[in-house]
């Protein structure tokens, strides 16, 4: 197919704005695929003035311009902000802020020009039609997201209400200038004074040549973390350890980096300290919301390990082989996911020699996919940064579900070449074909997680097992295995309670100052044992009346069972392929 012909079929929109990702998820994907957008340059200028973009409004109503000047006055202001119910100060601040608005947007434009290297290629409907991929689903999904969706209900929460305070875990992201970037509950505008106080606390302690870490009350743990120009704050009543909350904030930070890259965040704030980063993250709240839900409910983030879907090793091997065969230059990772668990992952061996995909990066990627139904719409081509791998550069991810409309099996292909969409899409076609021949989808559909009863130990209710780097000399993707949560942990509350118990033990056993080797905890409703050795990390949950002797016997049996099943439970030897990079870097034509 000729290249020029192709761009006729396809709307190729260059957005000199690194926030492509959220935009292709929400209102903007329609805004930008609208053929009324005349030119690239114009597009840039219009960026934050489109009617659907609320930023013009936000800008003038934004009450936070916390300039850190005289600390003492600031602290006094902080107290007033809290006590005066924000009235006088907000009004005053918004006046001064709107006065600066024009200068502000001018500066922002220069930032945009500066980041012109970020390019997104959006797939237009015509293209999908031509390829005949999930058109029905795609259309309905697109029209769903076509009208700018009303913000989720918790964005409109009354931040002075008791129900707001009752949330288990608040997370806030703000810039060093005190500008709100994200709040899990309640709108950033309503919380701007609270976030201003947070920033003031951070900089006040900093002014004394010190660093604020956390605040404890009987109800909450407040953890502060600064990363570059961003400040992240967690206010949690979950009683997790500070270290765990800090790790969660790191996930949040890295998810933001995965959309913008660290380098561009740094550059943006170097240009303009007061920049409102929400402009670039518009629509990404959903992704961060999703991440925080995952952090609370999915132990893989706690364990920094990947949960694999148990699969006969022969089936897993044949899936890996399919991925291994469907390659194109600059392809570096091929990942197959089912039911949000990993099926297999194949990686390039030359380009990323001796490196591996970190579980944390995979979690961010999975969350990104899970956070939006827009990905179910067909094929997505989007830049994504994998912060643990390299926080400053983008990969280009091709994401497509293989089983529409169920959308449980997802293929992710990562390339280093932003122009490689067509060649990577062709890989997908080949993978799909091969899977069809082997009837792989129906085999995958039959695969499911297992029940703890299969272990055959009577008092054992649940466990999490994380082996360290097996087999030898093979830097492995850190994985863990865990059965389904069954009775008495069927309800959401009970599952959360069990996870909290695991989190408690995890926090103690991995305490930075006083780590432990083993914890045996007899509580009223269950007995738990956590054990860390050089070979594995294990958390088990027993019925409360188990004796120590039978618990130890149970663990011996469990370890034996895992050993027996390990080929099914884990990806034992992650396969690799070689896609020698194309020196010319013009890979567009390579697909055909």
């Amino acid at each position: 197919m000729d290249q020029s012909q192709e761009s006729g079929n396809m709307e190729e929109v260059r957005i000199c704005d690194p926030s492509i990702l959220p935009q292709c998820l929400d209102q903007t994907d329609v805004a930008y695929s609208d053929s009324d957008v005349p030119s690239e340059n114009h597009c840039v200028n219009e960026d934050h003035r489109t009617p659907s973009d609320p930023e013009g409004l936000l800008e003038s109503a934004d009450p936070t311009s916390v300039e850190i000047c005289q600390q003492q006055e600031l602290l006094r202001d902080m107290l007033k902000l809290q006590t005066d119910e924000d009235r006088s100060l907000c009004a005053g601040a918004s006046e001064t802020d709107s006065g600066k608005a024009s200068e502000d947007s001018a500066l922002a434009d220069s930032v945009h020009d500066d980041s012109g290297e970020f390019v997104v290629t959006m797939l237009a409907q015509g293209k999908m039609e031509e390829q005949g991929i999930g058109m029905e689903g795609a259309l309905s999904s697109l029209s769903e997201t076509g009208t700018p969706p009303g913000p989720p209900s918790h964005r409109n929460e009354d931040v002075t209400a008791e129900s707001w305070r009752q949330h288990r875990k608040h997370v806030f992201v703000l810039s060093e200038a005190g500008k709100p970037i994200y709040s899990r509950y309640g709108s950033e505008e309503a919380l701007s004074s609270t976030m201003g106080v947070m920033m003031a606390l951070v900089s006040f302690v900093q002014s004394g040549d010190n660093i604020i870490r956390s605040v404890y009350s009987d109800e909450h743990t407040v953890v502060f973390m600064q990363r570059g120009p961003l400040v992240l704050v967690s206010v949690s009543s979950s009683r997790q350890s500070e270290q765990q909350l800090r790790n969660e904030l790191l996930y949040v930070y890295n998810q933001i980096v995965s959309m913008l890259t660290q380098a561009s965040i740094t550059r943006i704030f170097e240009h303009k300290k007061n920049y409102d980063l929400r402009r670039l993250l518009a629509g990404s709240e959903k992704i961060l919301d999703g991440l925080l839900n995952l952090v609370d409910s999915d132990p893989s983030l706690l364990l920094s390990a990947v949960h694999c879907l148990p699969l006969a090793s022969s089936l897993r091997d044949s899936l890996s082989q399919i991925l291994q065969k469907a390659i194109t230059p600059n392809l570096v990772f091929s990942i197959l996911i089912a039911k949000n668990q990993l099926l297999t992952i194949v990686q390039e061996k030359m380009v990323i020699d001796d490196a591996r995909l970190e579980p944390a990066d995979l979690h961010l990627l999975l969350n990104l996919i899970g956070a939006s139904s827009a990905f179910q719409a067909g094929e997505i081509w989007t830049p994504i940064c994998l912060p643990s791998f390299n926080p400053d550069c983008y990969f280009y991810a091709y994401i497509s579900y293989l089983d529409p409309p169920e959308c449980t099996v997802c293929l992710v292909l990562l390339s280093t070449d932003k122009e490689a969409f067509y060649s990577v899409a062709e890989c997908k076609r080949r993978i799909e074909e091969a899977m069809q021949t082997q009837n792989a989808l129906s085999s995958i559909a039959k695969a499911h997680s297992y029940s703890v009863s299969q272990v055959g130990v009577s008092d054992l209710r649940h466990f999490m097992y994380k082996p360290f780097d097996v087999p030898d000399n093979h830097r492995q993707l850190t994985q863990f295995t865990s059965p389904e949560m069954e009775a008495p942990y069927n309800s959401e509350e009970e599952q959360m309670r069990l996870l909290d118990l695991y989190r408690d033990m995890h926090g103690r056993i991995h305490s930075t100052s006083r780590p432990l080797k083993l914890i045996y905890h007899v509580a009223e409703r269950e007995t738990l044992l956590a054990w860390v050795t050089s070979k594995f990390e294990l958390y088990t949950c027993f019925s409360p009346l188990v004796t120590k002797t039978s618990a130890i016997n149970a663990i011996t049996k469990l370890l034996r069972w895992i050993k027996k099943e390990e080929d099914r439970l884990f990806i034992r030897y992650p396969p690799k392929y070689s896609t020698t990079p194309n020196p010319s870097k013009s890979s567009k034509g390579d697909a055909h």
Partner: protein
Amino acid sequence: MLMISPRMASGMQEKQYTPSLLSFFIYNPKFGPREGEEEKKILFYHPIEIEKNEKIRNVGLCEAIVQFTRTFCPTKPAKSLHTQKNRQFFHEPEENYWMVMVVRNPMVEKPNKDGKPPTVEYQEEEIIDSVYGSVLQQCYCMYKLFNGTFSRAFEAGGVELLTQKLEKFFYRYLQTLHLQSCDLLDVFGGISFFPLDKMTYLKIQSFVNRVEESLSLVKYTAFLYNDQLIWSGLEQDDMRTLYKYLTTSLFPRHTEPELAGKDSPLRPEVAGNLLHYGRFLTGPANLKDPDAKFRFPRIFVNTEDSYEELHLIVYKAMSAAVCFMVNAAVDLNREFCEQLDSLVGPQLTLLASDICEQFNINRRISGPEKEPQFKFIYFNQMNLAEKSTIHMRKTSSVSLTSVHPDLMKILGDINCDFARVDEDEEIIVKAMTDYWVVGKKSDQRELYVILNQKNANLIEVNEEVKRLCATQFNNIFFLD
């Protein structure tokens, strides 16, 4: 406090610094609500040399932190602030009166070559909040015992009187804090009880009754032997603070001749016809002295309701000490003291030797003490009873423990875990040093055991603790 670490970094020594008190202040935000008046909020500030603006800034930060946490829970504001270099503890014992204690994190100073200044590494996770939070609360309790509440002082003499009292008390008290040796026992703030047979206990009770009858001025009495409590007529919380004062401050200052050497000559304190060893630890040092002063320390008890101000008379004979508390409105004179001395001295001397005899018999029955396989701390929230075989000696200056500080901190961690839920629980952990630590909570009782056998397994550890419970706590049910 500075300790030289045994680790040597390429021939140069690392210096390890233990936690220390950076500052301690008390403020009331209502006293200087207007701009430019912030200094008026500050009622006490240690160290006194700190420059005024610095004080105001630090108080401002505390106010801001407290206010900030109220955004999320108006009724439960901040208790502590963790920073890289220090921890700040907040306590609001009376409405709007805030006490703040700033403790520097322990740190390691590593020398650098080429004359560069040494690198300082703060150990941020070493301090346990519950321990130092309790120390701050003790500060208030101790102040209140001898001075009454902040608000009463303010009502009586305004800010001037209050600041005077605060300065007078805390100037001395803060020097006795010894933050480097605080541990789980500070969280409990328990009372060690003297184990006694029924007969001897009844003798003591009847002695107390007799004295209270003869000396009608005596409102409350407390009886201690060997620094351990036997009988108290005070409310538990008041007794807990008084006990702490007696055992860590008053008694150590009066080292006993009978402790220094058994064969100290009888002091011919003749009262009537009887020789006795009785003497006042508070009030007149020597009754025979014509210039003797009959002034006793005042204490405040039941501050929640009846708010009583009392004279504290501590009278001691050999290892037995009795506290008599008399309404402060009464003027105590030589006559009263002589009467008390002649009445109590001989009886208490007799009683003390009775108890001593009984104690020695009991010890012989239980057999010679051999080094046990475990050390333990027991605490009962109901009666504040506390027992520790970990702490060898508690003095005013330092509490010596026989186990590694890290193990003590693990006990603190387990205690924090217990505090989370109101259930009976058992936690057994194996430390990185292979020591086993066991914590058991049953009803209001807590037991912590450190086992010496390093290579034991979980089941053996369990057996060992079972044996301990059977011998030491046979009447207490603990979860198996």
